[in-house]
């Protein structure tokens, strides 16, 4: 825990801050670096998409789009998918959070771990496992229940996306349920309310505002997703997969840009809607000092709820076991003979190149994303006033803008060499003749896509950190950067750890931007998985996913080792204590 103060520390910068910013060249340099990175990695590609989408020759496409029943169907598909995944994912998150915080049942720790598993899940893993288990000839759907269920389409997508994305909702709601003042529930109980009535009249109304944010976030992530619609979509086309097809199948960057813009509208609206919603001043408790204790439900009514959570957990476990088992059997469900061929192909055969490339790029991108995210957060929270929101916004573009859109932006902005006169000023970053075979743009995309994770956690930690602690350091004569290094950084180490871990996981599993940037020389695991999965070579796909997951978990350990587990600093720590 970092040093937390009971009330939210004021986020406003102390009066001396602006003088300090002007006077400190190091901070100016920092601002320039952050701004440049965000501009090259996010702003310019986005502008390139917008420029293409609003170029004169693109304008007639809008008329076509809004009169074509096919295109309108795609838009409707996208929105329906977002809404359903938002609702189902939030419901699943609530279910698990409720079980975790309010039921007196065994095995909650394991349930928590299972609910967190999808966070490190490689894309395609869940989708492919779903096809194998619950598809038309699925091991479970057909093998156990004798069904011939067609999983391709909306139902499959909602299932897979809800399963993969709900941990975000779960974590948010878990924090919120834990944050409710238990005395409020006790007061209701004390006045005679039953458990069910408390859930209905107290918990749910108090949580209702908290359900909106995860819904919107899942909506954004669902409509931005490219991997699952490609594997599982069947006839169900969404904007992301349509735009991808326009680039890779039809080489029509103009209509790709148009699809992108139409996808951007709900994405950005929902994403910023979500942030606005979270930043509103909501009061869930009336006075400080929560008191009382949580009363777990011990009656019979806990069992059906628990049963439901167990069922979902079983499905999650079945999906992940399928990935692992599928990577060591010939054709899981059909020919269950053990084989190490697939794993060998990945770690000792043609796949090793992709594994090493991916690992290298992610290893480069993670520290950059972590540090830049932290820097952006620090600048935003402490050192910038009027321009803070702009930098903050730039930093979060990597998650607010769908990956496919960003990828198309990279293609548009960085495929050609840029000359001024005969002088090459900006070499091509994307495509066959790209600088370092496209590695630069892949690393850049990794950084931009994973930067928001670190930035969010760091902003959260910094706003909780009372500015007086940093002021004490500056008072003693430390420069702003010294203060950051000696005082702030140690205090928010846990946030840095989380941020870096998220960044690494996001880089390793990132697919929607990357598939547009890979070149024959730079292979990336996720795009290998995609080609294996879409050609039905499930064993290889599973082997890649297993290796990928192993690398991500190993990466977490390495990051933990490098950053340190984060000193346990308690509330009682004083600013004087921190100075030593």
């Amino acid at each position, binding site marked *: 825990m970092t040093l937390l103060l009971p009330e939210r520390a004021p986020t406003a910068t102390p009066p001396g801050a602006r003088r300090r910013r002007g006077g400190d060249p190091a901070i100016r340099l920092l601002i320039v670096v952050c701004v440049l990175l965000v501009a090259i990695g996010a702003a310019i590609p986005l502008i390139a998409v917008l420029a293409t989408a609003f170029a004169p020759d693109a304008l007639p496409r809008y008329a076509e789009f809004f009169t074509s029943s096919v295109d309108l169907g795609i838009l409707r598909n996208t929105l329906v998918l977002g809404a359903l995944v938002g609702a189902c994912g939030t419901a699943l998150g609530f279910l698990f959070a409720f079980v975790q915080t309010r039921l007196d049942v065994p095995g909650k720790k394991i349930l928590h771990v299972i609910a967190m598993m999808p966070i490190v899940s490689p894309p395609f893993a869940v989708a492919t496992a779903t096809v194998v288990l619950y598809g038309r000839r699925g091991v479970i759907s057909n093998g156990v229940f004798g069904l011939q269920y067609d999983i391709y389409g909306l139902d499959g997508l909602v299932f897979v996306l809800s399963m993969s994305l709900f941990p975000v909702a779960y974590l948010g709601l878990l924090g919120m349920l834990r944050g409710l003042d238990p005395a409020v529930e006790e007061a209701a*109980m*004390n006045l*005679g*309310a039953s458990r069910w009535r408390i859930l209905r009249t107290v918990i749910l109304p*108090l949580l209702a505002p908290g359900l909106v944010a995860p819904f919107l976030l899942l909506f954004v992530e669902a409509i931005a997703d490219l991997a699952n619609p490609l594997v599982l979509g069947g006839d169900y086309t969404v904007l992301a997969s349509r735009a991808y097809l326009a680039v890779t199948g039809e080489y029509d960057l103009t209509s790709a840009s148009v699809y992108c813009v139409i996808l951007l509208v709900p994405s950005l609206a929902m994403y910023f809607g979500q942030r606005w919603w979270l930043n509103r001043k909501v*009061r869930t408790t009336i006075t400080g000092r929560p008191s009382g204790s949580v009363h777990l439900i011990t009656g019979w009514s806990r069992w059906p709820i628990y049963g439901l959570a167990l069922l979902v957990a079983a499905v999650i476990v079945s999906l992940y076991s399928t990935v692992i088992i599928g990577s060591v059997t010939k054709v899981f469900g059909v020919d269950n003979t053990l084989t190490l061929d697939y794993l060998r192909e990945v770690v000792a055969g043609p796949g090793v190149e992709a594994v090493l490339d991916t690992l290298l790029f992610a290893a480069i991108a993670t520290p950059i994303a972590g540090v830049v995210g932290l820097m952006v957060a620090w600048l935003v929270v402490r050192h910038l006033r009027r321009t803070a929101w702009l930098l903050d916004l730039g930093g979060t573009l990597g998650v607010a803008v769908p990956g496919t859109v960003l990828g198309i932006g990279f293609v548009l902005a960085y495929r050609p060499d840029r000359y001024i006169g005969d002088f090459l000023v900006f070499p091509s970053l994307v495509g066959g003749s790209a600088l370092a075979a496209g590695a630069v743009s892949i690393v850049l995309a990794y950084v931009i896509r994973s930067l928001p994770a670190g930035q969010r956690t760091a902003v959260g930690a910094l706003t909780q950190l009372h500015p007086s602690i940093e002021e004490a350091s500056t008072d003693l004569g430390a420069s702003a950067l010294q203060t950051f290094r000696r005082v702030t950084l140690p205090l928010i180490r846990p946030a840095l750890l989380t941020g870096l871990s998220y960044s690494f996981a996001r880089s390793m599993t990132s697919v929607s931007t990357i598939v547009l940037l890979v070149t024959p020389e730079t292979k990336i695991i996720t795009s290998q998985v995609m080609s294996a999965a879409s050609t039905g070579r499930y064993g290889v796909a599973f082997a890649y996913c297993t290796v990928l997951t192993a690398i991500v978990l190993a990466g977490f350990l390495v990051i933990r080792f490098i950053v340190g587990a984060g000193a346990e600093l308690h509330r009682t720590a004083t600013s004087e204590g921190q100075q030593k």
Partner: protein
Amino acid sequence: MTAAAHVEAPITEPADALRPESGSGHLRLDGLTKQFRGRTGTVTAVDRVDLDVLPGEFITLLGPSGCGKTTTLRMVAGFEQATGGDILIDGKAIGHLPPQRRPMAMVFQSYALFPHMTVAENIAYGLRLQRGQRSKDEIATAMRMAVTSMNLVGMEERSPHELSGGQQQRVALARALVVQPKVLLFDEPLSNLDAKLRTAMRAEIRRIQKMFGITSIYVTHDQDEAMSMSDRIVVMNKGKVEQVARPGEIYTRPTSVFVADFIGHANFVEAAPERIEDGVATLTVLGRQLTVAAHPTVAAGANGTFLMIRPETVRLTPVTSSGNGTVLRSTFHGPSLDYEIETAAGTITATEQGGDPSEALAEGTSVDLTFDADRAYLLPRD
């Protein structure tokens, strides 16, 4: 002040005048015990507490932090399951009932108002739960009465965070009162208010409590609060009840050194009684023979008994030679001036009300120290 008035048997029964007409709301704790089992072993938070709270009585649980006040209160409310003993209301055991079915209402330290409901909805919450027994009109009438008696008129439609701390406190009280509980429970309800408001709210709570005649248990660690509000005070220490008595008696006739020390300030002088007759001990302190009131368990000739001397009963007279004490230090507190005096019986604190700091006795001054023997009390060793 004369002494005779204070030499009387400790009062454990409250005055009859406190009993409300209805005669309901008689709460009894019978050997109530709570043990928490943790990783590091078992903590006995509440240890065989017996208590008889008469209908309409206002009882305060007072004691140092961690002595088990909150745990006791929460067992009465049903939020904690007792590990031993029982709780009876009007003779009926309720220890097995869940909190929902106990006829009590609690006012929480954090008020625990429902933040998503208006003041009116908060107050009506408990009434609506009794819908089977109450019509809409009845609910509205009860609500209006509560709002009026609690000075909340005009605030019904506000949300709790649009109220001041004192107003929130009153809403919490109103919400608890309208369900007509047999017992009202308070857990340090004033600790989030500033000093001035706290004093005003004490009187307010007491006024309302008397008006409705509801049996009340009030937890606090503020002895001033306990003294000024309670019919009787229960002093607790390490999970056990040390003394149950009226405020005046707790102060003048504490039953243990712990209570004497916890309530107000006290000097303790070790003194062996030479003779005891009818609760009056004869003993020699600082070279003078005195007669003082003694705790019933003190026996003649017993060693290690302590004479409690309140600082405000000590008088100092400066002398030129051969006093029985020397001034060590003086401290000015505004309304009073405190001296620490070195004597043959140890350091004794004396308080001079309205003392002028510019005329304070200088350090090293020789003084003749006397105290009001009528207000001293001989206590057994703990």
